């Protein structure tokens, strides 16, 4: 059981490092779809995102601090939503089995 917990602790630490620190070094070039859209002439058909003006839109834009915050918020949101959904989905029978 101890070893099991260590796996989760290491996993979460790595996840936070990737989202908050490593994300600073990510390439800012367009991704495959955006690149092809530009090359093939349909990039301009994209509409502005409805939430484009929200503070963490596009992971904070050019702000390093906001990028780190987006990483942290995103990790906590996916972790929390995942925990909520999977706890609700799990059949009740297995609760308290261990």
């Amino acid at each position, binding site marked *: 059981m101890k070893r099991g917990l260590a796996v989760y602790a290491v996993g979460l630490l790595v996840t936070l490092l*990737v989202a908050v620190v490593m994300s600073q*070094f990510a*390439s800012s070039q367009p991704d495959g779809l955006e690149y092809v859209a530009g090359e*093939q002439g349909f990039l301009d*058909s*994209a509409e502005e995102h409805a939430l484009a003006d*929200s503070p963490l839109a596009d992971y904070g834009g050019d702000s390093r601090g906001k990028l780190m915050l987006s990483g942290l918020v995103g990790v906590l949101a*996916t972790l929390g939503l*995942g925990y909520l959904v999977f706890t609700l989905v799990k059949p009740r029978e297995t609760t308290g089995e*261990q």
Partner: protein
Amino acid sequence: MHIPDGFIGPGVSAAAGLTAVGGFGLALRQARGYLTDRLVPLASLVAAFVFAAQMINFPVLPGMSGHLLGGVLAAVLVGPWAAYIVVSIILVVQALLADGGLSALGLNVVNMALIGGVGGYLIYRTLLRMTGSKPSSVSRLAAIAAMLSVPLAALGFVLELWLGGTLNSISISSVLWAMLGTHLVIGIGEGVITFFVVAAVMRARPDLVYGSQGFIGSRTEELVP
């Protein structure tokens, strides 16, 4: 790979939205069949990790980057239907961060959760059956399936653009080859990341890896309380 609003018209976007919601319902039912207490923290952690990893765009060609999709990675770790849920949750959070359009959410779920995740997992299972089951083959076969899942998801986009693209001026065959070519290359990165992550979990806790079921299952089950 995240489709913004405007690329695909409302009809096809809505159809994809319905497919995505129906798929989510099916995924909930299917995942219920194998979800245990042990899988809940792992599946949540996989969601957070894949979200984080997707933030890391790596250079692919001059002027172009790629990033992990994570469908096969999640599917091999927690099973295809839990992976569908994982990728959908990530896409919802990303759409709220303005990464991927709100009206395109269904399209993105279809491409990355259904085609990339569940479809990619079918490739993994097929490869496993063809090569024979060995614990050592899990991470390698996961890598190959992950590599192929990226151009497969790209094909999903091309189909959606063909059916519902908002511009008449584009050449679908030209988009098809461009999407396939670029995403075959991005797929290499997908394969490499998937290989190292699956190999790391296989080393630490092989009993947690859904995709290794059938050949390590009953023996290691006894080792873990």
